[in-house]
């Protein structure tokens, strides 16, 4: 399944810059936001944390992208940055003690996310979790996920099916 492109037409200035071979931050975000968010979501507790980590990933990317020599590797590089940022995030989390649990108040105009679904996904093993979330958020293609995770399509398909089966069992248990 191809996901709907929200802002499908980059402006002319951006196109000119991309034509010159340079990677712009707009292009980075436009192309890889879903994959980066998927990795962040798979490695954090909730959507808000994932959004925070994603923001720090792109900030890091904008400051260090000059070190990236091969633009073809931009996605893999970004996902690696995302994983490291998630580790940093958890490290910081351990060092802080929350005073009060922030009440979950749904923002007006912001769509509410199904927390139970996310909680079930969080119970999956890490590699299954990442595969599953990448699959759904980044194009629903095993080939794309395989390229992102530097794995084979067959292995990803097998991992995906097992992850989805485990998720089904978890959701069924939850309903019971």
């Amino acid at each position: 399944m191809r996901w709907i492109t929200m802002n499908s037409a980059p402006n002319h200035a951006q196109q000119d810059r991309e034509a010159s071979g340079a990677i712009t931050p707009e292009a980075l975000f436009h192309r890889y936001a879903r994959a980066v968010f998927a990795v962040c979501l798979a490695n954090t507790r909730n959507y808000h944390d994932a959004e925070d980590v994603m923001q720090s990933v792109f900030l890091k990317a904008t400051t260090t992208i000059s070190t990236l020599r091969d633009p073809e590797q931009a996605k893999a590089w970004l996902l690696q940055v995302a994983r490291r940022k998630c580790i940093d995030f958890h490290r910081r989390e351990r060092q802080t003690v929350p005073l009060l649990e922030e009440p979950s108040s749904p923002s007006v105009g912001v769509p509410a996310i199904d927390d139970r679904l996310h909680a079930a996904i969080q119970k999956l093993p890490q590699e299954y979790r990442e595969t599953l979330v990448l699959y759904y958020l980044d194009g629903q293609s095993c080939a794309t996920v395989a390229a992102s995770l530097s794995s084979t399509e067959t292995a990803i398909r097998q991992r995906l099916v097992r992850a989805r089966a485990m998720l089904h069992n978890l959701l069924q248990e939850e309903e019971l």
Partner: protein
Amino acid sequence: MQLQRECNDRFEDIVAYVLGECDPKTALELEMHFAICEQCRTTRGQLAAEETRIHSDVQKILERLAWAEKAVQQAVPPSPSLPACSQAPPPSEMPSGSLPTILIRDDSPYNGRNRPFVAYFSRVGPFSYFVSATLMCVAALAAWQYKIADRLGHVESDLETVVRHLPAAGGRITDMSQCRWPDVPPTAKNQAVAEPLALALNSDVPSGRKVQIESGLLEIAFRSGAKVILQGPAAFEVGDNGGFLNLGKLTGKFENKSKSGTTQSPRPNPFAIRTPTAVVTDLGTEFGVEVDDLGQTTSYVFRGRVRMDSAIHTDPRSVTLKSHEAARLEFTDGQKIELRSVDVDPRQFARRVHPERIPIGISGSGYDAQPGHPDPRWKVFRAGQEADPTPPAALLIGAIRSTWQPAIQGQAQWIGPTMTWHQPVPVGAVFTFRTDFDLKDGKPETAFLRGRAIAISSLKAIRLNGREISPSEEGKPKYAWEHGHMFQPFSIDHGFVAGNNVLEIDVESGDPPPPPGDFSALGLLIEIGGSVEVGP
């Protein structure tokens, strides 16, 4: 118990099927299994419902990402590229409006550290700390305001932007069976044709998207509750509530239940199928539409009513069709069209993606019979003596070993030519067990049988209508057991004929014969079942 275990073994295949990641062979086998197994159908339904839930969540995440993407586009100045960020324009060229949080990080290349204006104050000593602190406060305040505004819902304009970029109303693929897609290379002209990758189960098909299938069936559901089943080969452009059928057949169904329970057509946007020559408007019904190569349109109403209008504005014609009525808009001499009543075989329109299947009336050995009594359905005779038009019934024999029992007690029992195991038959004798069944209303080409058998001493052949199912290879019988006394699974998916069918199983007595009192000379236990699509 065995059947239960088999269904559990299929679980991952069903998951792959729902994800659209199943290979065609397994998908076909699963679809056949769904027809007879309610448990697996239920599992498929649960998984499909979860997929809907996940996709709903994914859509919400994508909306959030769209907001973030917009913020980035607003935030990043039109610099040539990131490596050249030191030449970024001064802050005065930054876009106006709220400051996105992405800009407040101190280590951002866009924070002004490398810009002459800030660099000047940074050399001025303590005063620079004051300016820096002030700037940071302003930035923090702006970021805080941005977040507050977001939380208070002052983002309608952003929301409108997102909604504007969402696809117009369309349909969703809710089911498919054996679909084959045309191999069309992407060109500027056919960009709107949905690629196979985009046509996975549960994927959205926006309005204006063209869908082409070479064969198979594809079900698209609309927000109104209407559904169409495309029947390949077909070319269809998805609309808000209906669409444009350029070629091929489809079946449309609209079930809009009002509070009183009666079926009503939606107004003011009725479910309608347009074709090159006609507009078929639903009035609360189920109907079929066919468009041939010339664009001529035929419509048949299964139940309810439809209105069929000519799409040729210079020659407006209209007819309302009731249940079991059909009409055709066709070209006559010249460019004139004619709307006339025709006889149509309604069976040419697929009314469900997965055709209704009925069980085949065949039973395992000894089913529903008492020990020592003749089997009412299975006959047995010595091979070569089938000239007898009425061979004797096989007899039920007692069980031998506990491991040689049927999966479900009572579904099958041991049968043989003799009543007890102590009446051995000649060494090397081959006996044929025969049963017959009638496909009745089923399509023979869609029938299949599956089962497992165990024989004493060996299974020599299985034949359907005189044709061996799996021929022997290199003189070695396919069904002889070689790895201990195991059940031999088999499946039959061809060789059926309309009406009565005959299934025969050859069993050979052992060599040397087993000692008396321990084994019988010859016996068969077979579990078997199957189904067939309803049809002529």
